[in-house]
């Protein structure tokens, strides 16, 4: 994965992979800044106050910088996760329902983060019920139906403009 042996080099893989689950993984009693700084320190990154301020502004939490996370809405808490992701040199994002709790502006920002990851040569694996929104950024979509993925396109046949954005998969026994 990402050029590393998944069994022998798990530490190296962890340095380029981030997971954003349905639970935001944010500490209620830390402020927005502290939550982001914690993620930076745990990633072994030096904290640059100017960069920190800029990213927090960018995700739209500039006014809430020193607010404890418990006082923020679900959408704002997920923006903290986006700020943490933006500051790390990642190559693979694992996103579970990334559009949950976001308004249109938030959704556009999530897709912006995914696009920027792709432009840097990285990838994102997104699990979502929100097929319309993910279509804007997905190169390839698979449909999970009754617990089965089937009819998946072989590698190298990614969906192209004009093609159906995802295959209608039918289950097989």
């Amino acid at each position, binding site marked *: 994965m990402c050029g590393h042996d998944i069994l022998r080099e798990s530490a190296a893989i962890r340095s380029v*992979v981030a997971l954003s689950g349905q*639970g935001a993984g944010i500490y*209620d009693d830390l402020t927005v800044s502290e939550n982001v700084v914690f993620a930076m320190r745990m990633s072994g990154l030096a904290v640059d106050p100017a960069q920190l301020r800029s990213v927090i502004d960018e995700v739209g939490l500039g006014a809430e910088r020193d607010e404890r996370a418990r006082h923020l809405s679900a959408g704002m808490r997920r923006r903290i996760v986006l700020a943490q992701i933006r500051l790390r040199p990642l190559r693979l994002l694992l996103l579970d329902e990334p559009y949950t709790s976001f308004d249109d502006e938030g959704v556009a920002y999530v897709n912006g983060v995914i696009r920027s990851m792709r432009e840097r040569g990285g990838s994102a694996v997104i699990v979502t019920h929100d097929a319309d929104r993910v279509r804007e950024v997905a190169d390839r979509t698979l449909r999970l139906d009754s617990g089965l993925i089937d009819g998946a396109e072989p590698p190298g046949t990614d969906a192209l403009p004009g093609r159906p954005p995802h295959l209608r998969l039918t289950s097989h026994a």
Partner: protein
Amino acid sequence: MPDVVWRRELGRVLAVARKDLAIERRSKATLNAVIFFAALTLLLFGFALGADTSAMRDAAAGVLWLTVLFSGVLVFNRSYQLELEAQSLESLLLYPGERRAIFLGKLLANLAIVFVVEVVTVPAAGILYQVPFWPHLIPLIGVLLLGSIGFVGLGTFYAAIASRVRSREVLLPLLLFPMLVPVLIAAVEATTAILAGDPMGNSGAWVRLLAAFDAIFLVAAFFAFEYVIGD
């Protein structure tokens, strides 16, 4: 390990410790309850021993350590509970670097909280059990430090194991208390000897034993942590 890696790992240890202590300072979810629980335990042991001053003095060291141990279990449970509440344990494990940094960070934070509990508990025990702690303060602090390091190290380790199961509050004492017997015996004997003025000069042997247990438990817990918290 290169110097830069050491510094990065130390930064991660301190990040976890600072985070846990900042959360505790603001929420006071653990400290208030633990201090109240410790005071209550001291009182109840006092009632159980009766009005016999001599019996209370004789039991003071044991009661003090049992109170610290019982209170510590609440601290250890809370340590991982806050990760579960924030649904952040998976994210924490996905950060790069040694996962043992999480153990050491939580160990430091738990030690700090247990020391605060001891700062309240020791004088309270001195007053309630009419034991003159003050003349023996320096050696007593040494024993408290050594005893706490051993028991907090084991407690932080076993709390990580228990954090993955539903009945963790019950499981943690069941796992932890049998393992703590050597630390408890050495700490109580050393404290009793120090409080009695150490007439037989045997406190040193108990302190050395306590230090040996600390070293063994800490090293074992440090190396095993990766496997108990792993995927």
